[in-house]
Protein backbone atom coordinates (compact mmCIF):
# COMPACT_ATOMS: atom_id res chain seq x y z
CA UNK A 1 0.00 0.00 0.00
CA UNK A 2 2.73 2.39 0.99
CA UNK A 3 4.49 1.63 -2.22
CA UNK A 4 1.37 2.34 -4.17
CA UNK A 5 1.02 5.71 -2.49
CA UNK A 6 4.49 6.64 -3.59
CA UNK A 7 4.02 5.48 -7.12
CA UNK A 8 0.42 6.43 -7.73
CA UNK A 9 1.23 9.59 -9.67
CA UNK A 10 3.83 7.86 -11.77
CA UNK A 11 1.27 5.18 -12.57
CA UNK A 12 -1.22 7.89 -13.42
CA UNK A 13 1.29 9.48 -15.77
CA UNK A 14 2.05 6.14 -17.40
CA UNK A 15 -1.65 5.68 -17.98
CA UNK A 16 -1.94 9.17 -19.42
CA UNK A 17 0.92 8.56 -21.79
CA UNK A 18 -0.75 5.37 -22.98
CA UNK A 19 -4.18 6.94 -23.36
CA UNK A 20 -3.01 10.07 -25.15
CA UNK A 21 -2.55 8.34 -28.55
CA UNK A 22 -6.12 7.11 -28.38
CA UNK A 23 -7.51 10.59 -27.95
CA UNK A 24 -5.15 12.63 -30.10
CA UNK A 25 -4.91 11.70 -33.74
CA UNK A 26 -1.60 13.39 -34.46
CA UNK A 27 1.64 12.01 -33.11
CA UNK A 28 3.30 15.39 -33.33
CA UNK A 29 0.59 17.01 -31.28
CA UNK A 30 0.77 14.29 -28.65
CA UNK A 31 4.53 14.71 -28.51
CA UNK A 32 4.17 18.43 -28.08
CA UNK A 33 1.87 17.84 -25.12
CA UNK A 34 4.51 15.74 -23.39
CA UNK A 35 7.30 18.14 -24.16
CA UNK A 36 5.46 21.10 -22.73
CA UNK A 37 4.37 18.98 -19.81
CA UNK A 38 8.05 18.49 -19.08
CA UNK A 39 8.62 22.22 -19.21
CA UNK A 40 5.63 22.80 -16.95
CA UNK A 41 7.00 20.25 -14.49
CA UNK A 42 10.16 22.29 -14.26
CA UNK A 43 8.16 25.43 -13.68
CA UNK A 44 5.99 23.78 -11.07
CA UNK A 45 9.01 22.65 -9.14
CA UNK A 46 9.84 26.33 -8.75
CA UNK A 47 6.38 27.81 -8.34
CA UNK A 48 4.63 25.10 -6.41
CA UNK A 49 7.45 23.71 -4.34
CA UNK A 50 9.87 26.57 -3.85
CA UNK A 51 7.59 29.55 -4.17
CA UNK A 52 9.57 31.07 -7.02
CA UNK A 53 7.50 32.38 -9.87
CA UNK A 54 9.90 32.24 -12.77
CA UNK A 55 9.03 34.16 -15.87
CA UNK A 56 12.20 32.95 -17.51
CA UNK A 57 11.56 29.29 -18.20
CA UNK A 58 11.72 30.06 -21.90
CA UNK A 59 15.44 30.69 -21.46
CA UNK A 60 16.05 27.09 -20.54
CA UNK A 61 13.73 25.78 -23.21
CA UNK A 62 15.56 27.90 -25.73
CA UNK A 63 19.10 27.07 -24.72
CA UNK A 64 18.07 23.41 -24.54
CA UNK A 65 16.94 23.59 -28.16
CA UNK A 66 20.11 25.34 -29.23
CA UNK A 67 22.30 22.91 -27.32
CA UNK A 68 20.71 19.87 -28.86
CA UNK A 69 20.63 21.52 -32.24
CA UNK A 70 24.28 22.52 -32.20
CA UNK A 71 25.47 19.20 -30.83
CA UNK A 72 23.57 17.25 -33.46
CA UNK A 73 24.57 19.57 -36.28
CA UNK A 74 28.20 20.08 -35.52
CA UNK A 75 29.27 17.30 -33.17
CA UNK A 76 27.06 14.58 -34.69
CA UNK A 77 26.51 13.01 -31.29
CA UNK A 78 23.94 10.26 -30.81
CA UNK A 79 20.44 10.79 -29.45
CA UNK A 80 20.87 10.47 -25.71
CA UNK A 81 24.11 12.43 -25.41
CA UNK A 82 22.56 15.31 -27.31
CA UNK A 83 19.72 15.38 -24.81
CA UNK A 84 22.15 15.13 -21.96
CA UNK A 85 23.94 18.15 -23.35
CA UNK A 86 20.64 20.01 -23.47
CA UNK A 87 20.08 19.18 -19.81
CA UNK A 88 23.54 20.27 -18.82
CA UNK A 89 23.31 23.54 -20.74
CA UNK A 90 19.83 24.13 -19.36
CA UNK A 91 21.14 23.54 -15.87
CA UNK A 92 24.08 25.87 -16.43
CA UNK A 93 21.84 28.62 -17.74
CA UNK A 94 19.62 28.10 -14.71
CA UNK A 95 22.64 28.32 -12.47
CA UNK A 96 23.53 31.65 -14.00
CA UNK A 97 20.04 33.11 -13.99
CA UNK A 98 19.34 31.66 -10.57
CA UNK A 99 22.56 32.98 -9.13
CA UNK A 100 21.46 36.52 -9.85
CA UNK A 101 17.73 36.26 -9.38
CA UNK A 102 17.29 34.31 -6.18
CA UNK A 103 18.51 37.20 -4.10
CA UNK A 104 15.26 38.85 -4.99
CA UNK A 105 11.86 37.90 -3.75
CA UNK A 106 8.28 38.23 -4.79
CA UNK A 107 7.47 40.49 -7.64
CA UNK A 108 11.06 41.64 -8.02
CA UNK A 109 12.04 38.07 -8.62
CA UNK A 110 9.38 37.75 -11.30
CA UNK A 111 10.58 40.94 -12.92
CA UNK A 112 14.21 39.93 -12.80
CA UNK A 113 13.55 36.59 -14.46
CA UNK A 114 11.53 38.46 -17.04
CA UNK A 115 14.45 40.78 -17.65
CA UNK A 116 16.74 37.80 -18.05
CA UNK A 117 14.32 36.21 -20.49
CA UNK A 118 14.42 39.35 -22.59
CA UNK A 119 18.18 39.55 -22.34
CA UNK A 120 18.69 35.99 -23.45
CA UNK A 121 16.27 36.61 -26.27
CA UNK A 122 18.21 39.60 -27.49
CA UNK A 123 21.48 37.79 -26.97
CA UNK A 124 20.30 34.85 -29.05
CA UNK A 125 19.03 37.33 -31.58
CA UNK A 126 22.34 39.16 -31.72
CA UNK A 127 24.62 36.11 -31.79
CA UNK A 128 23.36 34.91 -35.11
CA UNK A 129 26.52 33.01 -35.96
CA UNK A 130 25.73 30.52 -33.24
CA UNK A 131 21.98 30.59 -33.00
CA UNK A 132 21.04 31.47 -36.54
CA UNK A 133 19.46 34.68 -35.28
CA UNK A 134 15.91 35.15 -36.39
CA UNK A 135 16.05 32.20 -38.75
CA UNK A 136 17.06 29.81 -36.00
CA UNK A 137 18.99 26.60 -36.47
CA UNK A 138 17.67 24.54 -39.33
CA UNK A 139 18.15 20.96 -40.50
CA UNK A 140 18.51 19.46 -37.05
CA UNK A 141 18.55 15.69 -37.54
CA UNK A 142 16.70 13.21 -35.36
CA UNK A 143 18.86 10.14 -34.77
CA UNK A 144 17.43 6.80 -33.75
CA UNK A 145 18.01 5.45 -30.29
CA UNK A 146 20.75 2.98 -30.85
CA UNK A 147 23.41 1.14 -28.93
CA UNK A 148 26.62 -0.14 -30.52
CA UNK A 149 25.12 0.22 -33.93
CA UNK A 150 21.87 -1.66 -33.27
CA UNK A 151 18.75 0.44 -33.37
CA UNK A 152 16.73 0.01 -30.21
CA UNK A 153 14.02 2.46 -31.07
CA UNK A 154 13.41 4.24 -34.33
CA UNK A 155 12.30 7.85 -34.13
CA UNK A 156 11.55 8.63 -37.74
CA UNK A 157 7.76 8.79 -37.75
CA UNK A 158 5.78 11.01 -35.40
CA UNK A 159 4.42 8.09 -33.41
CA UNK A 160 7.81 6.45 -33.12
CA UNK A 161 9.19 9.66 -31.79
CA UNK A 162 6.25 9.91 -29.45
CA UNK A 163 7.10 6.54 -27.95
CA UNK A 164 10.61 7.68 -27.29
CA UNK A 165 9.50 10.95 -25.72
CA UNK A 166 6.89 9.09 -23.67
CA UNK A 167 9.50 6.82 -22.15
CA UNK A 168 11.73 9.74 -21.32
CA UNK A 169 8.79 11.60 -19.91
CA UNK A 170 7.63 8.87 -17.56
CA UNK A 171 11.18 8.41 -16.39
CA UNK A 172 11.68 12.10 -15.66
CA UNK A 173 8.32 12.38 -13.99
CA UNK A 174 9.13 9.50 -11.71
CA UNK A 175 12.45 11.09 -10.81
CA UNK A 176 10.87 14.44 -10.12
CA UNK A 177 8.13 12.90 -8.02
CA UNK A 178 10.81 11.15 -6.07
CA UNK A 179 12.59 14.46 -5.60
CA UNK A 180 9.58 16.35 -4.33
CA UNK A 181 8.78 13.55 -1.93
CA UNK A 182 12.35 13.55 -0.67
CA UNK A 183 13.94 15.49 2.15
CA UNK A 184 15.02 18.04 -0.41
CA UNK A 185 11.45 18.52 -1.63
CA UNK A 186 10.18 19.00 1.90
CA UNK A 187 12.87 21.51 2.65
CA UNK A 188 11.97 23.45 -0.48
CA UNK A 189 8.37 23.55 0.71
CA UNK A 190 9.57 24.97 4.00
CA UNK A 191 11.57 27.63 2.20
CA UNK A 192 8.54 28.51 0.14
CA UNK A 193 6.57 28.96 3.34
CA UNK A 194 8.99 31.07 5.32
CA UNK A 195 12.49 31.90 4.22
CA UNK A 196 13.52 33.73 7.34
CA UNK A 197 12.66 30.82 9.55
CA UNK A 198 14.26 28.34 7.19
CA UNK A 199 17.49 30.29 7.38
CA UNK A 200 17.23 30.59 11.14
CA UNK A 201 16.98 26.83 11.61
CA UNK A 202 20.09 26.28 9.56
CA UNK A 203 19.30 26.00 5.87
CA UNK A 204 21.27 27.89 3.28
CA UNK A 205 18.23 29.03 1.38
CA UNK A 206 20.16 30.33 -1.59
CA UNK A 207 21.72 26.93 -2.04
CA UNK A 208 18.38 25.17 -1.90
CA UNK A 209 16.72 27.61 -4.25
CA UNK A 210 19.62 27.30 -6.60
CA UNK A 211 19.30 23.53 -6.46
CA UNK A 212 15.63 23.82 -7.39
CA UNK A 213 16.53 26.20 -10.16
CA UNK A 214 19.16 23.90 -11.57
CA UNK A 215 16.87 20.89 -11.55
CA UNK A 216 14.19 22.98 -13.16
CA UNK A 217 16.62 24.25 -15.77
CA UNK A 218 17.80 20.75 -16.60
CA UNK A 219 14.27 19.44 -17.04
CA UNK A 220 13.24 22.42 -19.13
CA UNK A 221 16.44 22.16 -21.16
CA UNK A 222 15.59 18.54 -21.85
CA UNK A 223 12.17 19.64 -23.06
CA UNK A 224 13.87 22.14 -25.34
CA UNK A 225 16.15 19.47 -26.74
CA UNK A 226 13.26 17.12 -27.43
CA UNK A 227 11.38 19.95 -29.06
CA UNK A 228 14.27 20.81 -31.34
CA UNK A 229 14.39 17.21 -32.54
CA UNK A 230 10.66 17.10 -33.01
CA UNK A 231 10.54 20.10 -35.31
CA UNK A 232 14.02 19.76 -36.73
CA UNK A 233 14.79 23.31 -35.78
CA UNK A 234 15.79 25.51 -32.88
CA UNK A 235 13.97 28.75 -33.45
CA UNK A 236 14.28 32.07 -31.71
CA UNK A 237 10.65 31.79 -30.65
CA UNK A 238 11.55 29.05 -28.17
CA UNK A 239 13.55 31.50 -26.11
CA UNK A 240 11.07 34.31 -26.44
CA UNK A 241 8.99 35.88 -23.69
CA UNK A 242 5.95 34.06 -25.05
CA UNK A 243 7.51 30.69 -24.40
CA UNK A 244 8.08 31.67 -20.77
CA UNK A 245 4.57 32.97 -20.50
CA UNK A 246 3.00 29.85 -21.96
CA UNK A 247 4.94 27.57 -19.66
CA UNK A 248 3.90 29.58 -16.66
CA UNK A 249 0.27 29.64 -17.74
CA UNK A 250 0.23 25.89 -18.26
CA UNK A 251 1.61 25.42 -14.79
CA UNK A 252 -0.88 27.71 -13.13
CA UNK A 253 -3.81 26.38 -15.12
CA UNK A 254 -2.90 22.84 -14.15
CA UNK A 255 -2.48 23.72 -10.51
CA UNK A 256 0.62 24.22 -8.44
CA UNK A 257 2.09 22.01 -5.81
CA UNK A 258 1.30 18.71 -7.45
CA UNK A 259 3.38 17.43 -10.31
CA UNK A 260 0.62 15.61 -12.10
CA UNK A 261 -1.27 18.87 -12.25
CA UNK A 262 1.34 20.20 -14.65
CA UNK A 263 0.69 17.33 -17.01
CA UNK A 264 -2.97 18.24 -17.01
CA UNK A 265 -2.16 21.91 -17.49
CA UNK A 266 0.13 21.32 -20.43
CA UNK A 267 -2.24 18.88 -22.10
CA UNK A 268 -5.09 21.30 -21.66
CA UNK A 269 -3.22 24.33 -22.91
CA UNK A 270 -1.65 22.65 -25.94
CA UNK A 271 -4.74 20.72 -27.01
CA UNK A 272 -7.22 23.51 -26.40
CA UNK A 273 -4.94 26.01 -28.12
CA UNK A 274 -4.55 23.72 -31.08
CA UNK A 275 -8.25 23.09 -31.32
CA UNK A 276 -9.33 26.70 -30.84
CA UNK A 277 -6.89 27.92 -33.47
CA UNK A 278 -8.73 25.90 -36.09
CA UNK A 279 -12.08 27.39 -35.12
CA UNK A 280 -11.62 31.09 -35.41
CA UNK A 281 -8.68 33.34 -36.24
CA UNK A 282 -9.46 35.31 -33.08
CA UNK A 283 -9.07 32.21 -30.96
CA UNK A 284 -6.75 33.98 -28.58
CA UNK A 285 -9.81 35.77 -27.28
CA UNK A 286 -11.33 32.46 -26.29
CA UNK A 287 -8.08 31.48 -24.67
CA UNK A 288 -8.09 34.75 -22.76
CA UNK A 289 -11.62 34.14 -21.54
CA UNK A 290 -10.58 30.68 -20.49
CA UNK A 291 -7.70 32.06 -18.46
CA UNK A 292 -10.04 34.50 -16.79
CA UNK A 293 -12.44 31.70 -16.02
CA UNK A 294 -9.68 29.61 -14.48
CA UNK A 295 -8.55 32.47 -12.31
CA UNK A 296 -12.09 33.13 -11.17
CA UNK A 297 -13.45 29.66 -10.71
CA UNK A 298 -10.66 27.11 -10.52
CA UNK A 299 -8.39 28.18 -7.77
CA UNK A 300 -6.69 24.88 -7.48
CA UNK A 301 -6.35 24.60 -11.21
CA UNK A 302 -7.52 21.72 -13.30
CA UNK A 303 -6.02 19.32 -10.84
CA UNK A 304 -8.25 20.70 -8.12
CA UNK A 305 -11.27 20.28 -10.35
CA UNK A 306 -10.29 16.74 -11.25
CA UNK A 307 -9.70 15.97 -7.60
CA UNK A 308 -13.06 17.18 -6.45
CA UNK A 309 -14.77 15.33 -9.27
CA UNK A 310 -12.96 12.19 -8.25
CA UNK A 311 -13.84 12.72 -4.63
CA UNK A 312 -17.48 13.13 -5.47
CA UNK A 313 -17.37 9.89 -7.44
CA UNK A 314 -15.78 7.81 -4.77
CA UNK A 315 -17.09 9.59 -1.71
CA UNK A 316 -19.08 6.53 -0.60
CA UNK A 317 -16.10 4.21 -0.68
CA UNK A 318 -13.75 6.32 1.39
CA UNK A 319 -11.95 9.52 0.53
CA UNK A 320 -8.61 9.81 -1.15
CA UNK A 321 -6.10 9.47 1.64
CA UNK A 322 -2.64 10.98 1.39
CA UNK A 323 -3.14 14.62 0.64
CA UNK A 324 0.23 16.04 -0.26
CA UNK A 325 1.65 18.68 1.94
CA UNK A 326 1.42 20.98 -1.00
CA UNK A 327 -2.11 20.26 -2.07
CA UNK A 328 -3.85 22.49 0.36
CA UNK A 329 -1.57 25.41 -0.16
CA UNK A 330 -3.13 27.37 -2.93
CA UNK A 331 -6.16 28.33 -0.97
CA UNK A 332 -4.21 29.97 1.75
CA UNK A 333 -0.97 31.32 0.42
CA UNK A 334 -1.19 34.98 1.14
CA UNK A 335 -0.29 37.70 -1.21
CA UNK A 336 2.12 39.24 1.21
CA UNK A 337 4.31 36.28 0.63
CA UNK A 338 4.87 37.35 -2.89
CA UNK A 339 5.39 41.01 -2.50
Amino acid at each position, binding site marked *: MNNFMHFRYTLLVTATVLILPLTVSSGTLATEVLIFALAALGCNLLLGYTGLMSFGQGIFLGVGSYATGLSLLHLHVPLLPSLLIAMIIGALAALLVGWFSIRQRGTYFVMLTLAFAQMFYFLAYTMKDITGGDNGLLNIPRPNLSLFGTTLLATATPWQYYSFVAIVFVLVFWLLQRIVDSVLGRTLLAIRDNETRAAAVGYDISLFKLAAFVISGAVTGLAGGLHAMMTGLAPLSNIEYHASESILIMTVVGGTGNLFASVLGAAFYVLIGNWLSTLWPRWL*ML*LGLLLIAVSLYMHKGLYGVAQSLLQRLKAPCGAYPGADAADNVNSRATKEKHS
Partner: protein
Amino acid sequence: MNIYLLQVANGVGIGMLYFLLAVGLSIVFGLLRFVNFSHGAFFLLGAYFSFQLGEMGLNFWWSLLVAPLAVGAFAWLIEKFVLRHIYALPHHFHILFTVGLALVLQEAVISYWGPLGNNISPPDSLQGVVMMGNFVFPKYRLFVIAFTAVMALLLWWVLEGTRLGAIVRAGSESTEMVSLLGLNINRIFSLVFALGALTAGLAGALAAPIRGVEPFMGIEALGIAFVVVVIGGLGSFFGALAGGILVGIVQSLMSTIWSEGAHLMIYIAMAAVMLLRPNGLFGRAS
Protein backbone atom coordinates in the same frame (compact mmCIF):
# COMPACT_ATOMS: atom_id res chain seq x y z
CA MET B 1 24.23 71.05 -31.33
CA ASN B 2 26.24 67.98 -30.56
CA ILE B 3 24.60 64.76 -31.70
CA TYR B 4 24.74 63.27 -28.20
CA LEU B 5 22.97 66.26 -26.73
CA LEU B 6 20.38 65.95 -29.46
CA GLN B 7 19.84 62.34 -28.52
CA VAL B 8 19.56 63.15 -24.83
CA ALA B 9 16.94 65.77 -25.59
CA ASN B 10 15.09 63.36 -27.80
CA GLY B 11 15.39 60.70 -25.10
CA VAL B 12 13.74 62.95 -22.55
CA GLY B 13 10.88 63.35 -24.99
CA ILE B 14 10.44 59.61 -25.34
CA GLY B 15 10.97 59.16 -21.63
CA MET B 16 8.13 61.43 -20.56
CA LEU B 17 5.72 59.29 -22.52
CA TYR B 18 7.22 56.19 -20.98
CA PHE B 19 6.67 57.73 -17.59
CA LEU B 20 3.00 58.27 -18.24
CA LEU B 21 2.76 54.77 -19.58
CA ALA B 22 4.43 53.22 -16.56
CA VAL B 23 3.21 55.31 -13.66
CA GLY B 24 -0.20 53.64 -13.59
CA LEU B 25 1.36 50.21 -13.48
CA SER B 26 3.45 51.37 -10.58
CA ILE B 27 0.60 52.89 -8.60
CA VAL B 28 -1.60 49.86 -9.10
CA PHE B 29 1.21 47.64 -7.95
CA GLY B 30 1.76 49.83 -4.94
CA LEU B 31 -1.78 49.43 -3.69
CA LEU B 32 -2.98 46.14 -5.07
CA ARG B 33 0.36 44.37 -4.87
CA PHE B 34 0.20 42.68 -8.20
CA VAL B 35 1.60 43.31 -11.60
CA ASN B 36 -1.14 44.26 -13.98
CA PHE B 37 -0.40 42.48 -17.23
CA SER B 38 -3.38 44.12 -18.85
CA HIS B 39 -1.84 47.56 -18.44
CA GLY B 40 -0.62 47.46 -22.02
CA ALA B 41 -4.10 46.61 -23.18
CA PHE B 42 -5.42 49.78 -21.54
CA PHE B 43 -2.78 51.73 -23.43
CA LEU B 44 -4.03 50.03 -26.58
CA LEU B 45 -7.65 50.86 -25.78
CA GLY B 46 -6.78 54.48 -25.12
CA ALA B 47 -5.16 54.76 -28.53
CA TYR B 48 -8.01 53.04 -30.35
CA PHE B 49 -10.70 54.97 -28.51
CA SER B 50 -9.11 58.23 -29.50
CA PHE B 51 -8.78 56.95 -33.06
CA GLN B 52 -12.45 56.00 -33.10
CA LEU B 53 -13.53 59.32 -31.65
CA GLY B 54 -11.49 61.06 -34.31
CA GLU B 55 -13.19 58.97 -36.99
CA MET B 56 -16.52 60.01 -35.53
CA GLY B 57 -15.55 63.61 -36.02
CA LEU B 58 -14.57 64.62 -32.51
CA ASN B 59 -11.60 66.93 -32.44
CA PHE B 60 -8.28 65.86 -30.96
CA TRP B 61 -8.64 67.71 -27.68
CA TRP B 62 -11.97 66.16 -26.89
CA SER B 63 -10.64 62.73 -27.77
CA LEU B 64 -7.72 63.31 -25.46
CA LEU B 65 -10.19 63.91 -22.67
CA VAL B 66 -12.83 61.32 -23.46
CA ALA B 67 -10.70 58.35 -24.51
CA PRO B 68 -8.76 58.04 -21.22
CA LEU B 69 -11.92 58.56 -19.21
CA ALA B 70 -13.61 55.79 -21.16
CA VAL B 71 -10.68 53.48 -20.49
CA GLY B 72 -10.77 54.41 -16.82
CA ALA B 73 -14.48 53.74 -16.63
CA PHE B 74 -14.03 50.39 -18.31
CA ALA B 75 -11.28 49.41 -15.90
CA TRP B 76 -13.42 50.55 -13.02
CA LEU B 77 -16.18 48.16 -14.09
CA ILE B 78 -13.73 45.31 -14.55
CA GLU B 79 -12.35 45.88 -11.09
CA LYS B 80 -15.72 46.23 -9.46
CA PHE B 81 -17.35 43.21 -10.99
CA VAL B 82 -14.58 40.74 -11.69
CA LEU B 83 -11.09 41.49 -10.51
CA ARG B 84 -12.24 42.14 -6.96
CA HIS B 85 -13.03 38.48 -6.48
CA ILE B 86 -9.49 37.30 -6.89
CA TYR B 87 -7.49 39.64 -4.68
CA ALA B 88 -7.26 37.07 -1.92
CA LEU B 89 -5.72 34.49 -4.23
CA PRO B 90 -2.01 33.95 -4.68
CA HIS B 91 -0.03 36.12 -6.95
CA HIS B 92 -0.04 33.92 -10.01
CA PHE B 93 -3.80 34.12 -10.36
CA HIS B 94 -3.59 37.85 -10.75
CA ILE B 95 -1.12 37.37 -13.52
CA LEU B 96 -3.29 34.73 -15.12
CA PHE B 97 -6.31 36.97 -14.96
CA THR B 98 -4.65 40.05 -16.32
CA VAL B 99 -2.87 38.12 -19.07
CA GLY B 100 -6.25 36.71 -20.03
CA LEU B 101 -7.86 40.12 -19.97
CA ALA B 102 -5.08 41.56 -22.12
CA LEU B 103 -5.60 38.80 -24.69
CA VAL B 104 -9.33 39.35 -24.78
CA LEU B 105 -8.98 43.09 -25.22
CA GLN B 106 -6.34 42.80 -27.89
CA GLU B 107 -8.36 40.30 -29.89
CA ALA B 108 -11.48 42.38 -29.42
CA VAL B 109 -9.63 45.33 -30.91
CA ILE B 110 -8.60 43.20 -33.89
CA SER B 111 -12.13 41.92 -34.36
CA TYR B 112 -13.60 45.38 -34.32
CA TRP B 113 -10.96 47.53 -35.98
CA GLY B 114 -9.20 44.87 -38.01
CA PRO B 115 -5.64 43.61 -37.81
CA LEU B 116 -4.19 46.44 -39.87
CA GLY B 117 -2.92 49.57 -38.21
CA ASN B 118 -4.19 53.07 -38.73
CA ASN B 119 -2.85 56.55 -38.69
CA ILE B 120 -3.88 59.50 -36.55
CA SER B 121 -2.77 63.00 -37.40
CA PRO B 122 -1.84 65.45 -34.69
CA PRO B 123 -4.20 68.44 -34.54
CA ASP B 124 -3.42 71.15 -37.05
CA SER B 125 -2.08 73.47 -34.39
CA LEU B 126 0.55 70.90 -33.46
CA GLN B 127 1.59 69.87 -36.96
CA GLY B 128 5.05 70.62 -38.17
CA VAL B 129 8.37 70.99 -36.46
CA VAL B 130 10.23 73.45 -34.31
CA MET B 131 13.77 74.29 -35.25
CA MET B 132 16.27 75.10 -32.56
CA GLY B 133 19.61 75.52 -34.27
CA ASN B 134 20.12 72.25 -36.02
CA PHE B 135 17.81 70.54 -33.61
CA VAL B 136 14.56 69.64 -35.26
CA PHE B 137 11.73 68.48 -33.09
CA PRO B 138 8.11 67.84 -33.99
CA LYS B 139 5.78 70.29 -32.31
CA TYR B 140 3.56 67.48 -31.27
CA ARG B 141 6.33 65.75 -29.33
CA LEU B 142 7.10 69.01 -27.60
CA PHE B 143 3.48 69.27 -26.60
CA VAL B 144 3.60 65.72 -25.23
CA ILE B 145 6.54 66.61 -23.03
CA ALA B 146 4.83 69.66 -21.60
CA PHE B 147 1.54 67.89 -21.16
CA THR B 148 2.99 64.88 -19.39
CA ALA B 149 4.99 67.17 -17.13
CA VAL B 150 1.77 68.82 -16.04
CA MET B 151 0.15 65.44 -15.56
CA ALA B 152 3.10 64.33 -13.46
CA LEU B 153 2.72 67.29 -11.14
CA LEU B 154 -0.98 66.70 -10.83
CA LEU B 155 -0.55 63.03 -10.04
CA TRP B 156 2.18 63.76 -7.55
CA TRP B 157 -0.02 66.16 -5.71
CA VAL B 158 -2.89 63.68 -5.58
CA LEU B 159 -0.70 60.90 -4.26
CA GLU B 160 1.47 62.75 -1.78
CA GLY B 161 -0.52 65.77 -0.79
CA THR B 162 -4.06 64.60 -0.26
CA ARG B 163 -5.80 62.45 2.30
CA LEU B 164 -6.84 60.15 -0.52
CA GLY B 165 -3.18 59.64 -1.32
CA ALA B 166 -2.45 58.81 2.29
CA ILE B 167 -5.25 56.26 2.30
CA VAL B 168 -3.94 54.73 -0.90
CA ARG B 169 -0.49 54.38 0.61
CA ALA B 170 -1.96 53.00 3.81
CA GLY B 171 -3.95 50.49 1.78
CA SER B 172 -0.77 49.32 0.13
CA GLU B 173 0.41 48.15 3.54
CA SER B 174 -2.69 46.62 5.02
CA THR B 175 -6.09 46.63 3.46
CA GLU B 176 -7.77 45.06 6.46
CA MET B 177 -6.57 47.79 8.74
CA VAL B 178 -7.92 50.45 6.43
CA SER B 179 -11.36 48.92 6.50
CA LEU B 180 -11.16 48.60 10.27
CA LEU B 181 -10.92 52.38 10.30
CA GLY B 182 -14.24 52.56 8.56
CA LEU B 183 -12.92 53.34 5.09
CA ASN B 184 -14.26 51.44 2.12
CA ILE B 185 -11.07 49.98 0.76
CA ASN B 186 -12.89 48.39 -2.14
CA ARG B 187 -13.81 51.76 -3.44
CA ILE B 188 -10.22 52.86 -3.16
CA PHE B 189 -9.14 49.77 -5.06
CA SER B 190 -11.57 50.49 -7.86
CA LEU B 191 -10.51 54.08 -7.95
CA VAL B 192 -6.82 53.32 -8.10
CA PHE B 193 -7.22 50.60 -10.66
CA ALA B 194 -9.29 52.95 -12.78
CA LEU B 195 -6.74 55.72 -12.30
CA GLY B 196 -3.94 53.41 -13.40
CA ALA B 197 -5.89 52.43 -16.49
CA LEU B 198 -6.76 56.03 -17.14
CA THR B 199 -3.12 57.09 -17.21
CA ALA B 200 -2.34 54.20 -19.54
CA GLY B 201 -5.25 55.21 -21.74
CA LEU B 202 -4.01 58.77 -21.74
CA ALA B 203 -0.56 57.61 -22.72
CA GLY B 204 -2.15 55.62 -25.54
CA ALA B 205 -4.17 58.56 -26.77
CA LEU B 206 -1.08 60.76 -26.64
CA ALA B 207 1.12 58.20 -28.35
CA ALA B 208 -1.31 57.50 -31.18
CA PRO B 209 -0.34 60.48 -33.35
CA ILE B 210 3.31 59.49 -32.94
CA ARG B 211 3.05 55.76 -33.32
CA GLY B 212 -0.24 55.30 -35.09
CA VAL B 213 -2.62 52.70 -33.78
CA GLU B 214 -1.99 49.03 -34.23
CA PRO B 215 -3.41 46.05 -32.33
CA PHE B 216 -0.09 44.92 -30.92
CA MET B 217 1.07 48.21 -29.53
CA GLY B 218 -0.17 47.08 -26.11
CA ILE B 219 2.27 44.23 -25.72
CA GLU B 220 5.20 46.37 -26.62
CA ALA B 221 4.04 49.11 -24.28
CA LEU B 222 3.73 46.62 -21.44
CA GLY B 223 7.31 45.50 -21.97
CA ILE B 224 8.56 49.06 -21.77
CA ALA B 225 6.42 49.82 -18.74
CA PHE B 226 7.89 46.81 -16.94
CA VAL B 227 11.40 47.95 -17.57
CA VAL B 228 10.61 51.46 -16.44
CA VAL B 229 9.01 50.49 -13.15
CA VAL B 230 11.63 47.93 -12.35
CA ILE B 231 14.40 50.43 -12.91
CA GLY B 232 12.58 53.10 -10.94
CA GLY B 233 11.23 50.88 -8.21
CA LEU B 234 7.82 49.26 -8.06
CA GLY B 235 5.18 51.42 -6.50
CA SER B 236 7.23 54.59 -6.64
CA PHE B 237 6.03 57.68 -8.42
CA PHE B 238 9.45 59.27 -8.77
CA GLY B 239 10.81 55.90 -9.79
CA ALA B 240 8.47 55.84 -12.76
CA LEU B 241 9.60 59.33 -13.69
CA ALA B 242 13.31 58.61 -13.35
CA GLY B 243 12.97 55.18 -14.95
CA GLY B 244 11.00 56.55 -17.88
CA ILE B 245 13.48 59.26 -18.65
CA LEU B 246 16.45 56.97 -18.15
CA VAL B 247 15.07 54.38 -20.54
CA GLY B 248 14.25 57.07 -23.06
CA ILE B 249 17.77 58.46 -22.91
CA VAL B 250 19.45 55.06 -23.04
CA GLN B 251 17.38 54.13 -26.04
CA SER B 252 18.09 57.38 -27.82
CA LEU B 253 21.80 57.53 -27.07
CA MET B 254 22.28 53.92 -28.01
CA SER B 255 20.83 54.55 -31.43
CA THR B 256 23.89 56.67 -32.08
CA ILE B 257 26.45 54.66 -30.17
CA TRP B 258 25.53 51.05 -30.90
CA SER B 259 22.24 50.94 -32.70
CA GLU B 260 21.84 47.18 -32.97
CA GLY B 261 22.17 46.83 -29.23
CA ALA B 262 19.69 49.53 -28.26
CA HIS B 263 17.08 47.09 -27.09
CA LEU B 264 19.53 44.75 -25.44
CA MET B 265 20.97 47.71 -23.55
CA ILE B 266 17.62 48.58 -22.02
CA TYR B 267 17.41 45.14 -20.49
CA ILE B 268 21.02 45.17 -19.46
CA ALA B 269 20.44 48.51 -17.77
CA MET B 270 17.48 46.99 -16.00
CA ALA B 271 19.42 43.96 -14.83
CA ALA B 272 22.27 46.19 -13.70
CA VAL B 273 19.96 48.38 -11.65
CA MET B 274 18.37 45.33 -10.09
CA LEU B 275 21.72 43.92 -9.10
CA LEU B 276 23.08 47.16 -7.70
CA ARG B 277 19.92 48.55 -6.20
CA PRO B 278 17.68 45.55 -5.86
CA ASN B 279 14.56 47.57 -5.22
CA GLY B 280 15.05 49.96 -8.07
CA LEU B 281 16.31 53.51 -7.96
CA PHE B 282 13.49 54.79 -5.78
CA GLY B 283 12.00 51.57 -4.48
CA ARG B 284 11.66 50.72 -0.86
CA ALA B 285 12.62 47.39 0.59
CA SER B 286 10.14 44.70 -0.25
